[in-house]
Each structure stands twice: as C-alpha cells, then as structure tokens.
C-alpha cells in the first residue's frame, strides 16, 4: 500500500482508441493489485480491472485540451488510455503504477495474495491435477532402456533441472556427473519425449563446453547410450537450434557444439533460430504494427514483413518438423540443445511433440506438455516474462512463440486439435498475469524454495473447469487429418498474423459472429437431444414402441428451450456497429474532443441500454476469468527474499559479443 500515492481519482476519461464515441468518464482507483476504472452514469456500470502484474509499461503523454493522458501498455497486448484532469494526479498515478507494476520481490506478486474461496485441501489438490509420473508412464516409461535417475533429487547436479530425470539405464552415475560438468549449467542430456512405437526419443541438454578442442569421455558415453537405447537405428541426430555463427562464437568462450569426429554415429545439424534478443526486438516491432490505428494495407503488410516475426515462427516450426520427422519417419533419436537449453530447446522439443503425439493436441495434453517441457525443465519464466523488476534484457517472448506455433498448426489442421485458440490465449494471459503460481520463478528448485505449492494456486484445474470454452467443435480425434504425425506445410502463405492475440482487445477488428461458438452450441444441443432420446429409449423398453415414440415427438414439439439455444445470443449492438470507413476520422483525434461532446456521447451510450460498449471491461472479464475479480485482498506480508539467481546469462551470445 505504501506505493499508492493516489488511491482514487475522479473524472478520469477512459479513451476507446477505436472510436471516440465510446469514450467514457468515471473514477480511477488504485489498489494493491489492480487498477480499476469505474464508469459513471449508466446503470450497469462499466468496470475495467487491470492487474498490475500485467502492466508492461506506463507512459505519460503530452497534455491535451482535456487533460493529461496516461497510456498503459499491458503484456497481454491491451492498451489503455486514461486522461486525467489534474497534472499532479496524473503524475501520482504514473509514479504509483510504475512502482506497482514492477515488483521487486516475489512476495509482491498477485499469486501470493490471490485467495479464491478454496480451502487448503483444495489448493493442494489443485497442484496434483497434473502428474508428471503418469505422463511418463503414458509414454511407456520406465522401461528396459530408460529409468529415473535419483541423481538430481536435491538439485545438486543441475539446479535448473527437475528432480526426476530419465536417462538410459546403461548410464552410470559418474557418467552423468561427468557429462553434466561438460555442459553449460550442468544441463546434461536427458529425455524429453519417448516414442513407444519405435523407441526413438527426443533428448535435451545445453551446449557442450567443448571450446575449440575439449572432449569429455562421459559426455560421449552419454550420447552413445542414448543412441543405443534406440535399437532400431544406428545413429542419432544432434540438433543445435542456434545459427551456426552464434554457435561458433560460443567456442571462443569455451562453449560450443559437438564435434562429429569425437562422438560416434552422430549427425550434427544446425537450425538457425535467432536468440532471445532478436526475438524480443521482433515482437516489439510486431506490437507496433498491430497497434497502428487505421493503417493502410501497405503499412500493415510491410510492417509485418519488417518485424520478421513470422520468419522466426517459421524457423521454430521447421526445427520442430525436422525433429518430428526424424523420430516418426526415420525412427532416429534426436538430442536438441541451444546454449543453455531452456529457451529454443524448450520451443523445439514441445513443437515436435505436438506434431508427433495427438495427446498433446488435447486440452490436458497441452497442459502436461507445458508443465513438462517448460515449467519443470526450467524455462526461466520470471526472467523471460519480466515478472520482477530487473533485467529487461532477459525478457523475451519464448513461450509466446511456442503458443503461436501451435496456433499456426491449428489454422492448418482445423480438425486436429481438441482445444481452440481461446485456450492458447488464456494460457498466454496467465503466463504473464502472475495470478497463479505455475509460471513464477525460473526453476523447480526456486519454486520449491519459495513454497509456491503451499502459498499459491495452480492454473490448470481452473482452465479445466472452463474447458467448455476451450473446446474446438471441429475436433475429430479419429480423422485422417489427425494421423499420429502432423505434416504442416511451411509454404510462406501458410503463416498468418495472429489477430486474436495481438489485437485481442480491439474488438472492432474481429469477426462479429463466431462460427466456432455457434457450432459448439449446436453440438451441445445435439448431445442433449441424444441424452433425451436415450431416456426415452429406456422408457421404450418398458412401455413399448408406440407410446415412447409419441412421447418423444410431443416433447420435441413442446420444448422451446432448444430453439433458443440454436439461435445464438448474438451481440446485436456489435452487428450494427458502423466501421470507420472515413480514413480514420473517428479514431484520428481521440485527444481533442471537448468535455461536452464526450458527455453527450457517453450519455448516448447509456441511453442505448444494450450491452456495455466498453469492450475492455467485458473482455478482461471474459478472458481472465471471474476469479480476477472475486478477490483483491492486499497481501502485504513481506518475506525477506532476494532473487538469488543472478548469474550472468551466457545464453545467446551473439557473434558480435564474441
């Protein structure tokens, strides 16, 4: 609370950037966890809640006639513009928000104060929702070749790895230790995915500390053992996901890549995925393009091209395709690494898994995959998502790119995924929201030390409860399109701009009617009818044919409920929203409207009395779940805990650095 200089400001304008008509006046509140805007006037008050942890940055703009504009950019691509009448108020809000959105300690994060009406048992239960052991046994592990090694139980060998790791049975503890000493941050080769059908595996590690000529016998034995555990093939691929130049530059720092001469029967391959800094800049450019107000087609397409974003997505996808084909078609095991093995390696392994295994195309499967390849294997969520104030250079949209790859696959194979894009967007939102404990910290060890499981809740059961929202009605698990291995096309025109994510809050840009929602409703209704029919069929057994049939027919004629189900609750106000066909006249000058005009407009809005026009309030409600609003108690316990992991990050040393 001490950071809040100004808990409440009256007469603040919330500017809708797409149309000045929807701008409204109200009161701005700052709480320990949220910024809240309450529109005044209309009966069903519009409220806008923004989690501080979602705030990316706060910018003051030059004063306009009507006041002092304050722009809030969020990590979920929402952009909110307030206009505050008094300069001092604006400054106070700015200072408070800047501080609140940049917590210095984990304990300040929302997940530690978020307390839904759930008791302790429920919370603990929520963490048991996903069981990694069950996932490995689903893959068919442990088996004759692979077992869990206890070596990292105390995180002594590698503090960024999970405690339970699968290695070939033939590998002895000294070999593991030796191999880990030869790998960046001790991240020795270990199993990520196992293909039951042909025993091929995807393994992951960090780069070897080979420098220009160093060798490590244990590491060579390790790879040999991985190769041998797949009796079907005589060699294995080692995939370095970095551009060759970057990998070579790393050699000067005593790191590098495997020398084919030193390792028996490996085929070494570079796949040029750029480093986190390139990706961060690329996303920045993409966001700038997506935030353009009424751009021309040319500006948009050139901006998209210049951002290079889709090119990067393609390179990640191609790496995933290469690996999935090696495993499924050639039956060859693959070892994947980048520099530290927690960014590009995670992306590529999980993309390949989605292509390989239909299970990961189900709701539960994707959760498991993220929990396994990302959370447990130490993707540095806190750094990459910028949960805490600190190194901006560590922030990078690594998991965002994975989610986008899945989205691109969904676009190409509309019947192959059980979930829809809302699921991906929801996950994206919560990766950044710090609402649940799953994506806090940088490794399993840190989470254990922080007692995440004792103090916060898990996201997965929450998503599972809302699974009806996330279902793809077109999903056909047994369809030809959904063979085990998906073979996506990488032709350039297959890469689309993900409008639903990057323009998520610009409601006017999206289709006004949803095909998927409509289909979902139809499907539900069909199922309902089928159940009804089953009931009547049971009765039929008792009553005899004729009577039951009449019963069913009668029911059919009388029951009006289904009919309303069929016709979607389509938002009429949206259908009838004229667009801006006049070269951005409406949106061009949101800052210059006068007070009276604004008042008249918001009065008109309230007169309409239909759905609230304030899209932001609606959307955040819909997306981040009711829980967002159910509790906003201010957790002010401050445990003294410093972010102890302050290693200089060797990840992604570019050629320039070297």
């Amino acid at each position: 609370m001490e950071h809040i200089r100004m808990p409440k400001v009256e007469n603040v304008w919330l500017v809708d950037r797409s149309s000045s008509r929807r701008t409204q006046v109200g009161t701005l509140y700052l709480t320990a966890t949220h910024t809240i805007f309450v529109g005044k006037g209309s009966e069903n008050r519009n409220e806008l809640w923004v989690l501080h942890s979602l705030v990316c940055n706060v910018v003051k703009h030059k004063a306009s006639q009507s006041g002092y504009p304050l722009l809030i950019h969020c990590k979920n691509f929402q952009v909110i513009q307030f206009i505050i009448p008094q300069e001092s108020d604006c400054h106070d809000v700015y200072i408070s928000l800047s501080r609140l959105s940049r917590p210095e300690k984990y304990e300040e994060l929302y997940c530690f104060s978020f307390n839904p009406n759930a008791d302790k048992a429920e919370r603990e239960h929520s963490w048991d929702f996903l069981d990694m052991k069950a996932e490995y046994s689903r893959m068919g592990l442990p088996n004759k070749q692979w077992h869990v090694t206890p070596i990292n139980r105390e995180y002594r060998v590698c503090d960024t790895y999970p405690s339970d790791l699968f290695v070939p049975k033939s590998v002895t503890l000294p070999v593991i230790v030796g191999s880990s000493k030869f790998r960046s941050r001790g991240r020795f080769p270990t199993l990520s995915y196992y293909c039951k059908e042909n025993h091929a595996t995807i393994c992951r590690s960090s780069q070897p500390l080979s420098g220009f000529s160093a060798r490590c016998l244990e590491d060579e034995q390790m790879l040999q053992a991985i190769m041998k555990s797949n009796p079907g093939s005589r060699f294995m691929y080692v995939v370095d996901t970095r551009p060759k130049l970057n990998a070579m530059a790393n050699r000067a720092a005593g790191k590098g890549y495997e020398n084919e001469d030193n390792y028996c029967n490996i085929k070494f391959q570079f796949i040029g995925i750029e480093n986190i800094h390139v990706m961060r800049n690329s996303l920045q450019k993409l966001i700038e393009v997506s935030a353009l107000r009424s751009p021309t087609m040319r500006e948009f397409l050139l901006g998209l091209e210049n951002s290079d974003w889709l090119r990067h997505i393609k390179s990640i996808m191609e790496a995933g395709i290469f690996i999935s084909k090696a495993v499924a078609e050639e039956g060859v095991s693959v070892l994947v690494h980048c520099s530290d093995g927690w960014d590009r390696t995670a992306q590529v392994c999980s993309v390949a898994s989605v292509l390989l295994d239909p299970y990961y195309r189900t709701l539960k499967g994707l959760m498991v995959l993220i929990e396994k390849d990302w959370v447990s294997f130490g993707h540095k969520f806190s750094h990459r998502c910028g949960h805490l104030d600190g190194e901006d250079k560590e922030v990078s949209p690594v998991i965002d790119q994975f989610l986008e790859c899945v989205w691109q696959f969904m676009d190409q194979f509309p019947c192959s995924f059980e979930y829809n894009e809302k699921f991906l967007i929801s996950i994206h939102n919560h990766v950044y929201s710090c609402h649940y404990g799953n994506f806090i910290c940088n490794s399993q060890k840190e989470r254990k030390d922080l007692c995440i499981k004792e103090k916060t809740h898990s996201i997965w059961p929450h998503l599972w409860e809302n699974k009806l929202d996330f279902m793809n009605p077109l999903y056909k698990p047994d369809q030809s399109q959904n063979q085990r291995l998906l073979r996506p096309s990488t032709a350039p025109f297959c890469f689309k701009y993900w409008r639903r994510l990057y323009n998520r809050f610009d409601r006017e840009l999206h289709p006004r009617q949803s095909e998927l929602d409509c289909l979902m409703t139809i499907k539900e209704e069909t199922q309902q009818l089928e159940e009804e029919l089953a009931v009547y069929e049971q009765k039929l057994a008792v009553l005899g044919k004729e009577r039951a049939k009449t019963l069913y027919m009668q029911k059919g004629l009388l029951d009006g409920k289904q009919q309303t189900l069929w016709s979607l609750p389509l938002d009429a106000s949206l259908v009838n929203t004229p667009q801006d066909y006049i070269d951005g006249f409406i949106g061009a000058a949101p800052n210059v409207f006068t007070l009276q005009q604004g008042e008249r407009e918001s009065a008109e809005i309230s007169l309409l009395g239909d759905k609230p026009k304030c899209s932001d309030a609606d959307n955040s409600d819909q997306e981040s779940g009711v829980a967002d609003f159910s509790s906003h108690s201010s957790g002010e316990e401050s445990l003294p805990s410093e972010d102890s992991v302050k290693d200089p990050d060797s990840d992604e040393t570019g050629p320039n650095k070297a």
Partner: protein
Amino acid sequence: MELSEHIRTANVEDVTLRRPFHPALRGTLCVTSHHLLFSDRKDEDSWQLLILLRNIDATEKSVENLFGYPRAVGSSGTITIKCKDLLVLQLEIPGMEECLNIASSIEALSALESVTEMYPFFYRPSHLTLHGPWGLSSTEKYYKQTERLWDRWRVSTVNSDYSVCPSYPHAVIVPREVDDEKLVQSARFRQGGRFPVLSYCHHRNGMVIMRSSQPLTGANRKRCKEDELLLQAVIDGSLLGYIIDLRSTQQAQQARMTGGGFESKSCYSHWKRIHRHHERGKVLQESLIKLVEACSDPSHSVDRWLSKLENSKWLSHVHSALSTAGLVVECVERDGHSVLVHGSEGTDSTLLVSSLAQLILDPASRTLTGFLGLLERDWIQAGHPFQQRCAHSAYSHARLKQECPSFLLLLDCVWQVWRQFPLALEFSEALLLRLAQEVYASNYGTFLCNNEQERCAAGVKENTHCLFQSLLSPDIEEQYLNPLYEPTDLAIWPSVHPQSLQLWTGLFLRWTEYAQNMEEAREEVWSIVKEHRERAGPDRTNNTPSTHCDTLTPFENLMDELTIL
C-alpha cells in the same frame, strides 16, 4: 472455318498427366472442339478429366529430343496447362509432332472470339431443356417486389431497343416525375449513355442507391438541365444526397480534359460529392497476375512472400472496395440520404461498390436466391462487359486488352464479409468459388457477352442454359448453402482494418494442401449440423426468427468532414 479444322491430332495414347497432390497418371488424351479429355487406361473404374478449353488461360510447351532413348521415336514434349481457375496441369506427350499439334489446337480453340461458337451454345445435358425460365431477377421483378418504390418510382422502357444506352437493360427504374424524353437528354450527357438509374431502395428508410457513368461536362463545364432535374427528383423533398465518385479529385479534374467530368456543386446544389480513389482496368488485372504469381511459389521466404503480397496490392483493392461500400452504407443507413455512385464508365467499380453496399444493407440479398438475383441485376443486366473483362485470367501471356478482375474482386469482398459474419449469409464459400470459375469458363450462357443487347442478338436466352437456375436445382443446391445461416435484419458492417482482411485462401491457394484441410473442416461443419438436424427432427430445424432487436446507432454527421470538392 469449322472448329474441327483446328484439330490436327485428336487422340494421343500414353500421355502422362501430372496435377497437384495426385500421383502421375498415364492415359489417353483427346482434343475436341471445346474440351480436353484425359482418361486413364484402366478399363474398370476409369478416371476422366474433362477441361473446358475456354478454361485454359495459357499453355507452355517444351519439346525435347531424347537421343539414345530406347524407343524408335525418341522425342516427346511437355505441355503445361494453366487454367483460369488457377489449376496448373502438366501433360507429357510422346511424339514431338503430336505435342505441337495439340498445343496449337488448344491455343486456337481456347481463344474463340465468336460467342455463338462457344460451348454454352452446344451444351445440352439430358436433365435440362431449353426455353425454360431464364434468370432469376430483372428490373421489373425487383420493382414489383419492392413496394416502397411504387409511389415515387417507375419502370421506364425508354431503352427497350437499346438505343438510348447500349449497355443498359431494356428496362430501368427512374423517378416517376422524370419522363422518358428527359432520360434521353440525360443519357446524352453521360458517358456511354449510362444515365442515373436506381440500383437499390433501402427497406428501412426508402433511401436509394443510384448508379451511372460520369457526366460529360468537359473542359467547358457543360450542363444538362435534364440530368440535374433527374438527380433533383431522386432526392425529392430531402435536402441532401451524396455522390460517391470513385476517382480521386485529381483524376476527376483530369477527366474533364477528355470530355468527362463530375457534378459541380453549383449545378447540383443538393448533392455532396465525395471522392474515393479506386483502381480499375489494367492496374487491377496486373494486381491479380502478381498475386497469383506470388501464390504459386511455395519456396519463397516469409519475408519475400509478404513483400510480394503487398506489392500485388490485391488486398489494398479489397480494402478500398469494402471501405467505399461501407461509406455508401453509412450514407444510406445511418445518415439517411440517397447516394449516387459512379466512376468514369460506370461498368466496373461502380457496380462493385453498389452491389457490395446492398449486401451489407439488405438481408434479402444475403440469401442464395437474393444474392444471385443481385448479381443478375447489378452485374449482368447492368452491363458489366464480362466477355471483355474475363477473356483472360492471371496466367495469360497475351497482351492485355480489356481484361479486369472486377467480378473476382467482388467475390473476394463478399468472402471477407462472410469471414466476418459467418452466420449472416445463406450461401457458402463454395458458391463464390463456383462463380469465380464459371465467370471465366462455363457450360452456361449466363456470363456470355458484354450486355443485354449483345445477348439478345446472339440468342443467348434461347440457345443456352442458365447457370443461376441450375445452381438452385434441389439436388445441388445444398453444397452452396451455409449450414450455419441465421438471418439478421441488421446491416452487417464489415471491419476494413488491414488486420481484419485476409487473403482468400480458398481461391488463391485452391490447389494446395492448405485448401484440402479446409475442405475437411467444412465437411465436419456440415456433419455436425446434419447430426443436429437428425436429432432435432424436421420441425425443429427451422431457424427461429431473428432474435436481434434493432438498435439505433448514435447519429453523428461525419460526412461534413470529408473531402468535398
């Protein structure tokens, strides 16, 4: 010259056919007066491919002499056939001479000039009879259906012998108080005689969309009293109408130098003119060519693809067509004023904008029958010169004459609207794809000739079958219906932000894997809906009447801010 004289080699055995996503096939190739027929050699369940020669846009032949080839005749040739529906085929033909003969037959027969030699005049399927009802809609029918018109408007047959305007139909709707003599005068004052006629009357407020060609004011600022009276009669008592001029201000000014011009404020005092620039003719055709070229190379990098996509400008044209249509709708629906749309000739972008505006405004034109009727009235009868515009498509090497994909652009825009309102249109993407194909090469006479006068002279109605009638026949209608259709009375305002517009993959990537997966998804949509209908029983499948309540949108007079000359 008889058509058959073009055919020197009618049959070739042992031809190999390659097409996307299918294994190569060997079989027999035949050339007839109007078709290319390939049939594979297996006797039982033989497979055939029949291509209208008219559908072939370009052929490329390469002949090789393969010395050392074991067979005695050591030569063969390959013909690459690029169709107007964007399919690309390859035929490997043994024998150099045969190959050259076939290529030259294809070239000659695919570019027939005379209408009556074209296939629709020979197409006689057993299930159809000539002299049946032809067409779905007409000026008279539209007038009869639209009660709102009866009071102030009339059907004029001043053009019954096509002498007033050769490209107009025999009947047009004009204000009741303007007599035929005035129409003749006004026609003399408009390019090609295309005087202002009614295209649409809004069911909500009686406001109308008119279309015409440019006035021939010329450098001397000529006036025409009758034309001014005609437009005055359109707005009648109301104080204002909008003229949407589909040229930039500068272009309109320049047009005066060549005898054209625009309605000046002083002469048409109650009309406000708004200029929106639209590309036409050659520029559009080249845009299509560039787009198709970009789509046909999957080996491009993403960057190169995006820059080629941008460079083609196709999506920019989609963007401007939709936004101008949106502007017209704003004038009519929100502002409550009548609109006159014209460019220069009034046969391309004029029709594009006025028909798109109707689709957005009018629930009746969003049904299958209504949409086809709209196309019939606003494109075919309104004199869009289909024969000239669709002589060639994107692959042709021929020098461009009058080709222009205005109609394709319309279909693309309609597709964009469907993407944004997947429940609002009764017809499906399949209909748009079918139309995109039929407009370039067809068994039916619907898209033949350039205007009604030519069609009459050639006896199209008497001697060919009507596409629209056949699309509505019960056995094939279903594939053109949108299973999710739910009518709405409201205007469906599409978003025209570049982020909201997409490449029409169904058309431009039709022959790729991508489109095949989409096809599977469409089938799944149908099966979900069908399953539902089965369960729900016949009496429940009728869609409930629309649940939307009409809402008023806050009125804002935006038009004041526009570029008004």
